[in-house]
């Protein structure tokens, strides 16, 4: 597991200021849909019990239906957890020195990108549509001068606060670098 106080390549004075994941609504809406999908076999049971009751005691049909139901619920359970894991592993970390973007895509693709606060040129936040505005979540785009171009905090809660935090840390970082530069004049 990743220890938030011992990030890889941590600088001596570096402190973690924010760890953010996507808004809770993103996995919830899919989990709710899957929950209702879980009610389908129960409905099917009552339908079969009314229309074809012989199937539930049939020596071939009954075990087949049970196998299929088990198969169905296992698939549903794994889909729920795939969603939870995807939500849980997509993390954005803001420290006093850098911004780190960790994203998991499916089972075997994982991307980690980081940029130093000094290489950030612009930070924008965006909330689109009724649901994002009501629940206050959206994207924060961190434009960098590096090769990567930009980091996007996708569907994070309170994007305006995240943007302000990153901008504030950028100013502090710049001031710190200027102080160091004036304290050690070029010889």
């Amino acid at each position, binding site marked *: *597991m990743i220890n938030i106080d011992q990030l890889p390549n941590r600088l001596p004075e570096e402190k973690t200021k924010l760890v953010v994941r996507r808004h809770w609504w993103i996995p919830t809406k899919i989990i709710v849909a899957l929950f209702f999908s879980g009610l389908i076999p129960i409905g099917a049971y009552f339908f079969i019990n009314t229309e074809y009751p012989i199937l539930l005691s049939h020596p071939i049909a009954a*075990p*087949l239906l049970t196998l299929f139901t*088990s198969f169905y619920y296992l698939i549903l359970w794994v889909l729920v*957890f*795939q969603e*939870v894991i995807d939500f849980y*592993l997509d993390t954005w970390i803001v420290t006093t020195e850098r911004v780190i973007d960790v994203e*998991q895509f499916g*089972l075997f693709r994982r991307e980690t990108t980081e940029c130093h606060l000094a290489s950030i040129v612009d930070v924008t936040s965006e909330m689109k549509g009724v649901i994002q505005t009501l629940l206050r979540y959206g994207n924060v785009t961190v434009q960098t001068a590096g090769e990567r171009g930009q980091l996007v905090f996708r569907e994070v809660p309170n994007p305006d606060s995240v943007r302000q935090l990153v901008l504030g840390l950028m100013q502090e970082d710049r001031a710190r670098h200027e102080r160091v530069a004036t304290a050690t004049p070029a010889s």
Partner: protein
Amino acid sequence: MTISLFLIPYALFLVFYFIFVFFNIYHLKHFAIGGAGTTAVVSIYVVGTGAILFVSAILLMEFDWSQSIDVEAIQQVFFPERIISPL
């Protein structure tokens, strides 16, 4: 041919299912930010999977898997009118 034949695709599915579960837990253990949340997610995942398999096993054990596959018996359930009764 007995109905235990149906257990073969189910067993194959379970093999793939466990590989999938293993990789999901591996990702959580190695890449998630440590804390009670991660432990809780892994525990719920394992307990939920165990519960579904336990209930499935109990229900599946009630059936007689040595029953032979009788096509006529299946037809009788779904299409009783197609069975021509001897005069």
